[in-house]
């Protein structure tokens, strides 16, 4: 027991743990302090581990450089695409769980969903670009919201399908005997029972959309429509060493997601401890 579990943690354990945490946390620490240094200090040949003259100047520049516009673009795209996926996937998953469609459609559809999750998105990019160009959806946030369904919809479908399958059918049957219509069953019984699953799905979907880069790069040209990941990349290529501002944008872009980390940790642990999801 003691051997495998190391119940009584030895000094070696603490040293290893310290090294691991150092490696994990140092780059994050570096993001923070770099964002607080003046530009000159960031390109000094002797890097400093603590800012000599801590400044919020970088953040002021970031805010003046249109940060809130990029933030709102990202928020609009991530939340809208998640909302659409969540709605569509909730409805479709319920149908897939409770109804057997002809031609083994349930099975084929779910397999296809898995394949789409595996597919490198660049494979779909050329036809989608042509399609969206002819629909005049290039260079518009709406286009991005729609194309993000490529990521978020399979994701949400798969998760929702898993959640809804665990809801016992008895509640629905009881309600139907009492004369409830299918729509009422769905909105008054299934929806409340799926609430926690919907929250979990939404959080993961938002993270996926928040981080998306490829389609944003291909579909958005107008500088005022950039999402945060796109803005960060442009910043890297335009201002090679304005690291303070770069890290400032980066940190601000990460904070909303970082707040979820406790939840994500719990969720992943839950779903992978028993079976696999």
């Amino acid at each position: 027991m003691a051997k495998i579990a190391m119940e009584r943690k030895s000094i070696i354990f603490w040293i290893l743990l310290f090294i691991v945490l150092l490696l994990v946390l140092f780059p994050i620490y570096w993001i923070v302090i770099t964002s607080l240094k003046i530009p000159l200090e960031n390109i000094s040949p002797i890097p400093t581990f603590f800012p000599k003259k801590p400044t919020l100047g970088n953040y002021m520049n970031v805010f003046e450089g249109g940060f809130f516009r990029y933030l709102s673009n990202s928020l609009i795209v991530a939340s809208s695409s998640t909302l659409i996926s969540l709605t569509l996937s909730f409805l479709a998953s319920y149908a897939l769980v409770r109804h057997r469609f002809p031609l083994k459609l349930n099975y084929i559809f779910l397999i296809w969903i898995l394949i789409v999750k595996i597919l490198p998105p660049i494979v779909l990019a050329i036809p989608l670009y042509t399609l969206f160009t002819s629909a005049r959806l290039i260079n518009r946030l709406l286009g991005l919201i729609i194309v993000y369904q490529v990521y978020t919809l399979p994701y949400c479908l798969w998760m929702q399908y898993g959640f809804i399958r665990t809801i016992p059918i008895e509640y629905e049957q009881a309600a139907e005997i009492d004369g409830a219509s299918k729509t009422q069953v769905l909105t008054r019984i299934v929806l409340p029972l799926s609430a926690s699953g919907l929250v979990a799905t939404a959080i993961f979907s938002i993270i996926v959309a928040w981080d998306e880069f490829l389609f944003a790069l291909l579909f958005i040209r107008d500088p005022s429509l950039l999402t945060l990941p796109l803005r960060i990349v442009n910043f890297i290529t335009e201002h090679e060493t304005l690291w303070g501002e770069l890290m400032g944008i980066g940190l601000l872009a990460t904070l909303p997601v970082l707040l979820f980390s406790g939840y994500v940790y719990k969720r992943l642990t839950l779903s992978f401890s028993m079976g696999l999801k």
Partner: protein
Amino acid sequence: MERRTDLRKNLFYYSIFIPAFAVIIFLTIYPVFSVLYMSFFKYKYLFDIKVFIGFKNFVRIIKDSLFQTSLFNTLIFSAVATIAEVTLGLFLALLFYGRFPGKRVFLIMAVFPMMISTMVVCAVWRTLYHFDFGLLNYILKTSGLKSVGWLINPNIALFSIILVDIWQWTPFAFIIIQAGLNSISKEIFEAASIDGAGYFNTLISITLPILSKQILLVFLLRTIDTFRIFSKVYALTQGGPGNSTETVSYYIYRQGFTYFNLGRATTASIYVLLVISVISVFYIRNIMREEA
């Protein structure tokens, strides 16, 4: 009467299923067929050339040394990153097993890298890797070693990107393997210990076999994700120096969106689809076995 309610029910199920179904057809099935169709054409968008050439693209692409390089780089990237992440994830899970003060806080901290937006991760590593002002080279220089061209040496750049991926995604492998490890009942270890099994014996003959499900799953998920590597390449090296960090996704991107050579880009996509279909067979079999 009975039949009528059945019909109404059917209608209800179809009407709630069709929206998602339509979106999936429109955004994924149509493009895949469209890619297949285009791959049979010499298709240069800029010059308005579109000529049917049968399988010629497929032969040309497989002979294209740049495509070969990109495929090779992708395989290296995928294999090295996946193996490293799974191994380190396993190591971390074993390290974190059991109780110790502050465990919960340390666990959440260890998850931070995967919560940071990929572009931000790339940004900070670019500063760390910088040849003149980067921290890594500063440490090397003060230790009396030579500076390393992390992102500008063609022999090293690919591995520098791999390192970034490892930093970002080992936590993912860690969480999943850890979850599996915690679900193993403690009695098993106790019994092994009473039987006099040592740490490594227990690890190899008991712990790893029980964890094989989780390990296989992480392995597949990371293989799938590393195979599509694009954004890190774009942000860190843009495929360079030379073509040393060109990956298949980046190759398709350049053929399609820089040279507008749609025939080539779509043919390369078909090859990617073929590789992916091999991976999917394993993945889907694994998932479906769990679902059944």
